[in-house]
Every structure is written in structure tokens, then in C-alpha cells.
């Protein structure tokens, strides 16, 4: 073999020729073929793959929408409707993109929940977790700007409300808002830059997703027991075991997605966004998309504007430092009898916030939003640090194989994909 060529194990001459010069096939084989993966994943572990698929769907549909969309205040609304009516399957592409945003948030919220429940954010996966939070933040920015593009009433007024938040920043706030707007109100320059950024950010997300996966492949995946694999009996090769298990999840996900797109495409949207934007008419209630509602509730729970803005961003920022707030050495909530219930309550509380965010900011709703906001932060700042000290975790199993295999003992040779009779 000529020197400088990569040692390839592939026999197909074309594959081998490429692999020797650029070992992408070896890399794929290592990272997605034989990659040792804990053998005890449940279906919560589908959601990373689902998010990946969702990102690809969004980028693919988005590219085709951009071919037919016109980013100008006088044409944007109509161009979207022309896509719906005159572009071949334009209605399909647009409804997939529109509902894809909601699906993306559902998938990612479940993905984050799984992290919280099984303690995946803890050492050595802190950076992996932080990259994930970064993706979530980028997704929110992208979704917000995407919602502005059809230039309906909610697009316009949502953009006005959210960009105005930045004016709460002392000294430079107004300058930042002017910069965001490209002028002195939400107008054509705003629409243009939002379109440009909405096209850019998904590729930034794709980049961070790459880092997220690169980091994952250093530490390996967490698992429902929250203990590290100790040897080959604890793992299975990623392919075919998890490629097929992810495929099952992907199809269930596609069924839910298809139901939304084909049978109730506007269910998660807002009727007002089918009214063209009108700067002279304010809608009776300005409400963001459902996935922003929990954070909107936190924003409105604080009587001070700057305080509200800080709390809202703080609700995400706190996730970055979560690995250092939760000092309990036990990852999985299965072995944390007290923390488990506080986390369950946190989950319910998240939906209370979502509900409160859709209500008018008055009367009892404000009180509920405040209590919920307090618990949202208390869980991270008080409960988790305290529980790390006082909670007595249940005994951890000796190994994954011991805990999850029928009959208890490790199956010899289980790690390799070879047929085996059931015991």
C-alpha cells in the first residue's frame, strides 16, 4: 500500500479508493455502525434522532419556500398565499414548514425533559448539554424570525413586542432596538434582515448540532440507569439496534406530524396571522406562538420591564449552569426518590406557565404566573442544591447488564450482532 493512505477495511474497490484517501466510510462505520451504545435505552432516546430529522425537514422545505417568497412588506403576505395556491404542492411545503416548527419544539422539549430526568447534563457531559441549550436558544431566535415572515397581524405585532424588549437594557437598549429594526419601527428593513437571518441561523444550528454530536461521541450516551457502561456486555453496536429502534420512533413522529399537516394545519397557529399586517390596528391580545408561552409568562410575571426581560433570558441562562447547580452524584431520577417528585412538579409547572402565558396578564393569572415562575427558578437554585446534600439516593445497580438483562447475567457475545436463541 502506498504510504500516506488510510488503512481501510472496506473491500468494495470504489468505496475503498475513496476511504483510503478520505476515510469518511471508516468514520461513519465507527460513529454510526459499531459505535458502542448502552443497551438499555428506552424510547425517550429517540428524540435526538427526531430533532435531527426535523432540522433536515425544516431546511429542505425552507429552501423551497424561499424560492417563492418575497421579503417585502407590500408583497410578503400575498407571496405566502401564492405559495399556498399557485405553487405546485406549495400548500404542502408551507404547512410542513409551519407545523414543522411546532414539531421541532415538541421534540426538543421532550429531549430536554429526558436530560433533566436522567441527569444527562452531569459530568462528563456538561459541554454536550450546554451545546444543546445553545441549539434551543438558536431555535427560538429562528422560529421568532420565521413567524414574522408571512407579515400577518401577529407577525407584525409579535415582532414589535419582542424587539421592544431590548429597549429595557440600560443605556444601549434604544440603540439596539433601532439596529434590530433597521429604522424607527418594525418595517421593511426589519422584514429583510429577519428573512436573511432566518435563512442563516438554521445553518448555524446545523453547525452546533455537529459539535453537539461530536461531543456526544466522546463521552458516549447516558442511559436510563445513569451509570456508565463498564464493558462490552453493557453496550450494543449502534447499528442495527438503535438505527432500527430510532426508525420506529421516526415513523410514529411522522404520523403525528402528518396528522397536523393534513388534518389540522392551522390548529397551532393564530387566525390573526391570516390578516395582513396593519401598523394602525393593534390586535386585542398579542400572543406569541405556543412554544414561547412559558417564557412569555415569566416575562409578564415581573412588574418591572428590565426585570422581566432578565428573568425571561435567565430562564434559559440558568440551564447553562445546571450541571454545577445539581451536585448530586446520582444521575437518573430512578434512584432519587425525592428529587424525582420535585422534577415531576417542575414539568407540570412548565405547562402551567405555558397556560398562563396564553391568558391575559390580569387578576389571578398574574398570581399563578408569579408562583410558577418562582418554582421554575427555585427548582434549580434551591431545591437541587439542597437535595444534593440531604437526599439519600437508592442503591445503584452494579452494571447495566446486571440490571436489565433477563436472568440477570451478561449474555456472552451479546455485543456483536449475531443471531441468538432466546433463553
Amino acid at each position, binding site marked *: 500500500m502506498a504510504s500516506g493512505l488510510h488503512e481501510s477495511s472496506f473491500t468494495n474497490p470504489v468505496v475503498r479508493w475513496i476511504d483510503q484517501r478520505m476515510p469518511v466510510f471508516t468514520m461513519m462505520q465507527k460513529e454510526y455502525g459499531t459505535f458502542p451504545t448502552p*443497551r*438499555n435505552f428506552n424510547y425517550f432516546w429517540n428524540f435526538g434522532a427526531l430533532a435531527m430529522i426535523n432540522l433536515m425537514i425544516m431546511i429542505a422545505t425552507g429552501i423551497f419556500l424561499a424560492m417563492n417568497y418575497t421579503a417585502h412588506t407590500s408583497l410578503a403576505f400575498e407571496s405566502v*398565499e*401564492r405559495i*399556498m*395556491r399557485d405553487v405546485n404542492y406549495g*400548500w*404542502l411545503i408551507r*404547512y410542513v414548514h409551519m407545523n414543522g416548527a411546532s414539531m421541532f419544539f*415538541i421534540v426538543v422539549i421532550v429531549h430536554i425533559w429526558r436530560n433533566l430526568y436522567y441527569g444527562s447534563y452531569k459530568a462528563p457531559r456538561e459541554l454536550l448539554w450546554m451545546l444543546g441549550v445553545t441549539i434551543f436558544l438558536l431555535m427560538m431566535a429562528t422560529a421568532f424570525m420565521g413567524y414574522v415572515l408571512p407579515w400577518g397581524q401577529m407577525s407584525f405585532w409579535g415582532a414589535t413586542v419582542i424587539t421592544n424588549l431590548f429597549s429595557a437594557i440600560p443605556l444601549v437598549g434604544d440603540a439596539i432596538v433601532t439596529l434590530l429594526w433597521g429604522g424607527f419601527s418594525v418595517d421593511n428593513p426589519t422584514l429583510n434582515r429577519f428573512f436573511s437571518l432566518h435563512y442563516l441561523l438554521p445553518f448555524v444550528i446545523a453547525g452546533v448540532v455537529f459539535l453537539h454530536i461530536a461531543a456526544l461521541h466522546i463521552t458516549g450516551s447516558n442511559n436510563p440507569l445513569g451509570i456508565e457502561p463498564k464493558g462490552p456486555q453493557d453496550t450494543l453496536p449502534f447499528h*442495527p*439496534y438503535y438505527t*432500527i*429502534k430510532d*426508525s*420506529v420512533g421516526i*415513523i*410514529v413522529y*411522522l*404520523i403525528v406530524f*402528518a*396528522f397536523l*399537516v*393534513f*388534518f389540522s*394545519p*392551522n*390548529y*397551532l397557529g*393564530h*387566525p*390573526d396571522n*391570516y*390578516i395582513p399586517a396593519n401598523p394602525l*390596528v393593534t*390586535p*386585542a*391580545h398579542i*400572543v406569541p406562538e*405556543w412554544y414561547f408561552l412559558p417564557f412569555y409568562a415569566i416575562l409578564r410575571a415581573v412588574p418591572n420591564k428590565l426585570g422581566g426581560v432578565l428573568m425571561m433570558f435567565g430562564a434559559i441562562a440558568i440551564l447553562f449552569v445546571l450541571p454545577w447547580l445539581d451536585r448530586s452524584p446520582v444521575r437518573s431520577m430512578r434512584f432519587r426518590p425525592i428529587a424525582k417528585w420535585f422534577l415531576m412538579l417542575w*414539568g*407540570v409547572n412548565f*405547562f*402551567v406557565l*405555558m*397556560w398562563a402565558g*396564553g*391568558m*391575559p396578564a390580569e387578576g389571578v393569572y398574574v398570581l399563578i404566573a408569579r408562583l410558577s415562575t418562582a418554582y421554575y427558578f427555585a427548582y434549580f437554585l434551591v431545591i437541587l442544591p439542597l437535595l444534593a446534600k440531604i437526599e439519600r439516593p437508592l442503591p445503584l445497580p452494579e452494571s447495566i447488564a446486571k*440490571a*436489565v*438483562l*433477563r436472568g440477570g447475567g451478561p*449474555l456472552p457475545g*451479546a455485543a456483536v*450482532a*449475531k443471531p*441468538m436463541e*432466546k*433463553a
Partner: protein
Amino acid sequence: MMPVRKLPALKLKAAALAAALSLGLMAAPGAQAAEGNIEIPDTRYSFDGLFGTFDRGELQRGFQVYKEVCAACHSMRLLSYRNLRDIGLSAEQVAAVAASYQIQDGPNDDGEMFERPGRASDRFRRPFPNDAAARAANNGALPPDLSVIVKARVGGADYIHALLTGYEDPPPAGVTVMEGMYYNKYFPGHQIGMAPPINSDGQIQYADGTRATVDQMTRDVSAFLAWAAEPELETRRAMGVRIILFLIILGGLTYAVKRKIWARVGGDPVT
């Protein structure tokens, strides 16, 4: 213009989604809270439900109502005459409908704008040249474009039907209606600038001989507007049925393969 009441739907959605996501941990208490909701009566349409389709006869009658009544003030600028093929008009009928309008075109070689008979490819002619003219002719109120009105209102076609039949003259005791306004049960704020547009049986002569009662006309035009807002509805649902059936079968097969592969290592782990 109309301030639009849309919060209840969103509350419902947020609550429903929350309930779904939290596996039933939370009911939907927000659904019926607050702000004196007016119950919109449910009009039964052929396109209701998951698998409903449009009734072509109803759509054609609805178009006739739009053409003879609504079009005096309301534009439908997202529609072209060619779209009427979808509601069952032949190419000749579409050409005849289009040709009955004079459309401004130009400029010609002399730089002049000119009028010509409409073609199938023309958009529905607007009743007013611009919004200011529309307001001037309507006591300051702007008649909204009706192209996507059914998607733009909570309650959709039910709401349109309710609105068209919701006028009360005289208004209920104790309600003062402003000069030039009309009392309507279902309109947010109850005062609407539009005079009751469909107000007497036999107001139009249906081409198909259907008796033109107020209820019939208002139902028909609401159905027509529902079609105009979502002309893809039938294609969409038909495609959805096929895709979901396909996915269910594929899902079953995939699950079987998954079981088979995992059987090599003793099946699913005990979790």
C-alpha cells in the same frame, strides 16, 4: 376595521397541547375562562370533520351570492377566475364569468391604460380601486378582503354564517347603537359597520332553482368562502389519509423488524 377576538382559541390550544404533552397531568381549565365568550352556533357543513368534502352545488350557489351581493363592497384579490374550475364550472362558464367584468389593463403602445373584458387568468376584479375609495364609499369602514377570511376568524365558516344571520333590529333593550352602525350578536363589540347584506328570502334567484332563503344564502356563501380560504382542503385530506395509512403499515413492519433484530440479544431490556 374590526378588532378581532381570538384569545379563546389560543387558550384552548395551549391548554390542549399542554394536556397532551404532560400525559393528561393537566386538564384544560383555561378553555372556557374569562371574557364573555359568545357561543358561535355550529353550522353543519359538508366539509366538517376530518374527511368532509365540499358540495360543488353549494359552492356554486355561494359564488353566486358573493358575486351578486358581497362583491359590491368586498374584494377577493387572491382568487382568479380560473380558480372557479375547482367549484365545478366548465372552461366556457369560467370564460363567460370573467368576460362579464371589465378589467383595466395597460399601458398600451400609446402609454394609455385601457379596459378590456376579463380573462380566466385575471384576478377577481376589486370593487374599489384602493382602500381609501372603499372607506369613502362605506362610511369610513373598510370592507375586508374575503380571500382568506375563514382562516382569519375564530370559528371559521361557522362564524361567518353566524355573523350574517346575527343582526338584531331593533337592538336589545338598553343598547345604543352608534349612527351608521348595526347591532350584531356575534360581532366583537356588537356594533358592525356592515348593513345586513342578506336580509330577505328570495333576495337573489339561484341559477339551480334552489329556494333562496336567508339561511340557504348565508350557508352557501360561508361554504364558498371556506373553499376560497382553503381550496386545497380536499386534496390535502385525501393525501393525508393515504400517507397516514402508508405510515401505519410501514410502522408495523418496522416494529416487526425491530423485534426481530432485538430478539438476537434477548429482546427489549428490562427497564
